[in-house]
């Protein structure tokens, strides 16, 4: 059952140099209880796309086109009050950089209590009890609630942020780079935690990461973004085993293999196009080693290349 259906979403930022089309026609759907990974390099629009779902764009950003159907309701058309209700109660977010997303001079429990009392008329004690439950849920000692953020490690802070995101029992949680800045062991723990919470609470998750290997561990589907667009969207196993878009192919090639012969890691030469003036051609054509004439004259659209596997390439691999 489809929970979230995003259609031809376009988001742009008004800057001094002109209008930057950060998200330029993004389509994807998310089923209930599904984990979707959004991947791509810095500046490709992953975070912008996610923030526009919550309508939390910076003041110079606007949603220009498209629709965001959440549980049948078009979020693009909802007013601010309704949006404030939906945020946290239905859709919540774990912000990028958990290290700074907690108020340094207040205990972490009081900040979770704040999230609860803003949305529900309940007593402080009830909210505090719920906060303790949430701590247990994310495998933290409830006593830790009395700590200040500087007394917690990075992984613990990330758990607090996840607990905070779950405070009002949302249906959809967006995790923006949930494992960035954590060491590999802690990364694995946080990913396991997210996967467990998804099952236990039947959550739907959107996980944003530039690291395909992180997404591959927990996601049902992965969408690869490039220069403001989704270039490939497939089941995780299909994407990893049979990437179709040259960009996805190269991304997967850049993951160091644990087994097998040692080889030089590949990087993709070149830089993404300027989103102030995106070219009327395949946006990856400048960097594509399989480029043909058609790629520089015609902009490819997402099309099905296998069952539940779409890619935006004239000549999929």
């Amino acid at each position, binding site marked *: 059952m489809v929970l979230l259906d995003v259609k031809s979403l376009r988001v742009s930022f008004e800057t001094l140099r002109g209008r930057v089309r950060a998200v330029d026609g993004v389509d994807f759907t998310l089923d209930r209880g599904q984990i979707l990974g959004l991947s791509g390099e810095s500046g490709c629009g992953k975070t912008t796309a996610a923030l526009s779902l919550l309508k939390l764009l910076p003041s110079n950003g606007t949603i220009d086109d498209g629709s965001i159907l959440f549980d049948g309701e078009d979020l693009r058309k909802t007013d601010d009050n309704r949006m404030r209700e939906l*945020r946290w109660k239905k859709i919540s977010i774990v912000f990028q950089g958990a290290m700074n997303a*907690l*108020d340094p*001079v*207040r205990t972490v429990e009081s900040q979770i209590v*704040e999230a609860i009392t*803003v949305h529900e008329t309940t007593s402080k004690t009830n909210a505090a009890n719920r906060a303790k439950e949430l701590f247990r849920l994310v495998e933290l000692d409830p006593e830790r609630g009395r700590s200040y953020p500087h007394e917690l490690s990075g992984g613990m802070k990330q758990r607090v942020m996840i607990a905070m995101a779950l405070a009002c029992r949302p249906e959809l949680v967006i995790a923006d780079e949930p494992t960035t800045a954590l060491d590999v062991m802690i990364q694995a723990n946080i990913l396991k935690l997210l996967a467990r919470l998804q099952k236990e609470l039947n959550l739907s998750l959107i996980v944003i990461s530039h690291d395909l290997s992180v997404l591959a561990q927990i996601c049902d589907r992965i969408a690869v973004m490039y220069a403001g667009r989704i270039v490939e969207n497939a089941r995780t196993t299909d994407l990893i085993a049979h990437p179709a878009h040259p960009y996805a192919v190269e991304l997967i090639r850049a993951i160091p293999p644990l087994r097998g012969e040692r080889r030089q890691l590949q990087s993709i030469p070149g830089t993404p196009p300027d989103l102030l003036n995106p070219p009327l051609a395949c946006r990856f054509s400048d960097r594509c080693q399989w480029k043909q004439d058609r790629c520089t004259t015609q902009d490819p659209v997402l099309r099905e290349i296998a069952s539940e596997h779409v890619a935006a390439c004239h000549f999929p691999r």
Partner: protein
Amino acid sequence: MFESVAKRLFGLQGGQLNEFWNQYRQSKLALAGLVVILCYVILAISASQIAPYNPFVPSYDILQQPSSSHLLGTSEVGNDVLSQVIYGSRVSLIVGFVAASVSLLIGTAFGLISGYYGGIIDVVITRITDIFLVIPTLPLMIIMAAILGARLSNVILVVGLLGWPSTSRIVRSQTLSIRERPFIENARTIGSSERHIIFRHILPNVMTLIFANAVLVVNYAIISEAILSFLGLGDVSQISWGIMLYFAFRSGALSSGAWWYVFPPGLCLVSLVLSFAFVGRALDAIFNPKLRKIQ
């Protein structure tokens, strides 16, 4: 009680309070300053018990040298100078603390509002702050005091209403920085109200700065009161160190060699203000680690 206040206001915990005290102890001057201030506070509270004479009652022993019956001599109308100095600490401290509170309240409110909301509100408040910073305070204070009349409450009002711009500036700049931190964005996303964000997130984060600045504002208030009183704009029905100096000057005490009438209030003022300055400097060094000496 002190600990719970510290916790609520600054988010300090027991351990942090100890750490704070350990750092504070490092500075001998700061410790001395604290002791001097506490002495004056005790003096002010128990003035009626400690003072040997009623400082308001004149006698026939005018301008007498210090002796065993009058340890600091007498004034031009025969008041006991020691008793006057003791009672004088009351007005100086009251004006210092109350006027400073008024200034801090106005300055903090303006700073928070202009820093948080920005835009046209910020421009207006910042310009007003600039005007107050540029106008020479003393003449303005004299004019205001003269218009309002010589009453203690008016002195407090005048000093308090003119002492806020520095606080406002400091709070504004810190608010500007904190407003952009991720945890504020997080609070906004959660749906916290603006009031909640300002009072529960931003204010506690600027509190240490306000606290370090408060000491300097108290100093400014004490000196301003003394200046106004010395110029004859103080409340002469009260005794303050400034008012003592005013009467000493008017009666020509210094030219007639009555040093015991001039020096005590003057030295008291200097030592109190200096003590506050030492405490302020120590707090600044603790709250702003950049100023700390490398060990």
